């Protein structure tokens, strides 16, 4: 990789981290309503899968995949306004956090029934296939959602038609409080791929190099018409399920162990070994990401709050005018 790309990837990791940290602070300050679902610690997964996508590819992020929004092209200002429940957010205040996608940038908004976006991604990939468009759909899901029927139905259909879709399992070891061993009886979620007739791969989700290598192959395979891949990224969320969750179900030792495998620290070690001027890069990046997030918060703060009656808007694309009938 070129120095420029190495630095660019670093910038994304840091921007996501800054954004995550800031939303946690805003939550603690009581400035955010509703749930805040930090993906801190999982940045390498979203950067690795989204960075090399084309603008006309589609992603189906999770509630924790704020980073996927940013890397795929969502405006940080509007993303922050979305989290604030303001009119400039993607949902114009109708729902919070990541339920409002940014469709112009190929980012689909998830529902809270996790895994439910996988059939949607498969359907979209079916369109790419029948129209012979060399586009791909990337469907993220947690290892908890892997227990849902929607995940099975989507993968089965994708296998039947060899659809251009990549299923990305972000296995952060806990579905809220439920650990892997109470979620499934297989060693890896990716082991199930064989049951759908395509390849499954397990990757260290904190190692950006490893993620990018696996993601690149899976995306190429989909784009060339060689069918889907299930990639399981083993990673870890530093925070609880949401900010109010103290995550007492995990040991301190476990958390520290994972913090010592931090995806950003690992990337900094790599940058150092490449003999780049890491001190200068760090300083420059810190200034840039701080500024971007500051501007996003200022924008979201200043964005108008929707009025009550706006609740009735955007329900139907073709509202029925009873008077005209």
């Amino acid at each position, binding site marked *: 990789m070129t120095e420029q790309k190495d630095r660019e990837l670093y910038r994304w990791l840091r921007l996501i981290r800054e954004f995550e940290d800031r939303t946690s602070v805003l939550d603690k300050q009581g400035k955010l309503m509703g749930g805040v679902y930090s993906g801190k610690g999982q940045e390498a997964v979203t950067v690795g899968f989204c960075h090399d996508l084309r603008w006309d590819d589609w992603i189906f992020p999770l509630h924790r995949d704020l980073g996927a929004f940013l890397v795929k092209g969502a405006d940080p200002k509007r993303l922050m306004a979305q989290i604030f429940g303001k009119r400039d*957010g*993607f*949902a*114009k205040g*109708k*729902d919070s956090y990541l*339920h*409002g*996608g*940014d*469709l*112009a940038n190929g980012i*689909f*908004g998830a*529902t*809270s*029934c996790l895994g*439910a*976006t*996988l*059939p*949607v*991604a*498969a*359907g*979209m*990939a*079916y*369109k790419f296939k*029948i129209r012979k468009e060399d586009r791909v*759909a990337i469907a993220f899901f947690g290892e908890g959602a892997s227990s849902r*029927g*929607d995940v099975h*139905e*989507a993968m*089965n*259909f994708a296998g*039947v038609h060899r659809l251009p879709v990549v299923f990305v399992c972000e296995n952060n070891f806990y579905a809220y409080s439920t650990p892997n061993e109470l979620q499934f009886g297989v060693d890896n979620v990716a082991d199930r791929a064989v049951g759908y007739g395509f390849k499954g791969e397990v990757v260290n989700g904190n190692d950006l190099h490893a993620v990018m290598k696996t993601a690149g192959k899976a995306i190429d395979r989909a784009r060339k018409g060689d069918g889907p891949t299930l990639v399981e990224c083993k990673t870890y969320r530093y925070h609880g399920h949401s900010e109010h969750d103290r995550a007492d179900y995990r040991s301190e030792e476990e958390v520290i162990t994972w913090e010592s495998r931090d995806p950003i620290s690992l990337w900094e070690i790599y940058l150092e070994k490449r003999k780049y001027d890491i001190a200068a890069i760090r300083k420059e990046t810190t200034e840039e990401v701080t500024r971007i997030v500051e501007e996003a918060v200022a924008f979201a703060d200043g964005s108008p709050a929707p009025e009550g009656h706006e609740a009735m*808007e*955007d*329900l*139907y*694309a*073709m509202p*029925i005018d*009873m008077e005209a*009938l």
Partner: protein
Amino acid sequence: MLVTYIEAIRQAMDEELARDRNVLLMGEDVGVLGGAFKASTGLQEKHGTDRVVDMPISESLIVGAGVGLAVQGMRPILEMQFIDFISCGFDQIVNSAATLRYRHGGQTACPIVIRGPSGGGVHGGLYHSQNPEAWFCHVPGLKVVAPATAYDAKGLLKSAIRDDDPVIYFEHKFLYRRIKEEIPAEEYLVPIGKAALRKEGRDLTVITYGAPVHAVMKAARDMATEVDIEVIDLRTLLPIDWATVKGSVRKTGKVLIVHEARLTGGIGGEVAARIAQDCFEELDGPVMRLAARDVHTPFAPAMEAYVLPNQEKITEAIRKLAAY
């Protein structure tokens, strides 16, 4: 031309598949077999395997995939082999499709149609007789239609396919081959949201939809010397054409609501409540409802007849209401 109700459905899909290359038909056995009830006979041969798609037995996927296609500007028709199985796709309908536009702040439409055979009277038993329309009338973001005639079956389905919102289309399997009508050879549409005045009358109004429309019409004709009945076929259940409903009730002062779905939590409760509130001064009797008994639809003929409304029960209810 003279067509059955199911042929009208087939024609609507055939014409829309031919008219717009973004229209697809997806469902279990809709392709090679032409559908369990033959609603899509010949369509795969004519429009191709890419567009008339035999799907795995995965109702949630069928709806979810439809949402993904809709975001890409496609207009999928999604068949439930029996409408009883729509419950397997419930989350994708109410949480994914119905909220799609709203949760994206109006960034997209969701032009999907979910259709399938509903209704009893055919000894289908518990899982081939259901009328689950009320579940969906409680969901903002959906439109719900239930045609009673071949003319409406075709015109409403074509409108549903061209509509930019998710439409649930309840076809009644009892009517599939039991009714035959002359319909225009040239293209026509039936607007979603508009009820049909099936018969004018002065004494009382019967509001109904789906298969019971035919039993109500027969009762109205048979009782013509006794009582002058006005019959309204709602056709669209979400949103309901309140202007037509209230206009009729204000004229006759008496109303009976008839549906084949169960009484408790059915559409009739909503219609009755609106009439009670908005037409109170004009009412000359209680707002009455006749619906299936609050039990599952059983298999054995005597039990099924006991549970579902029929012409005899309708006649009895009309007499009771007319006596006020």
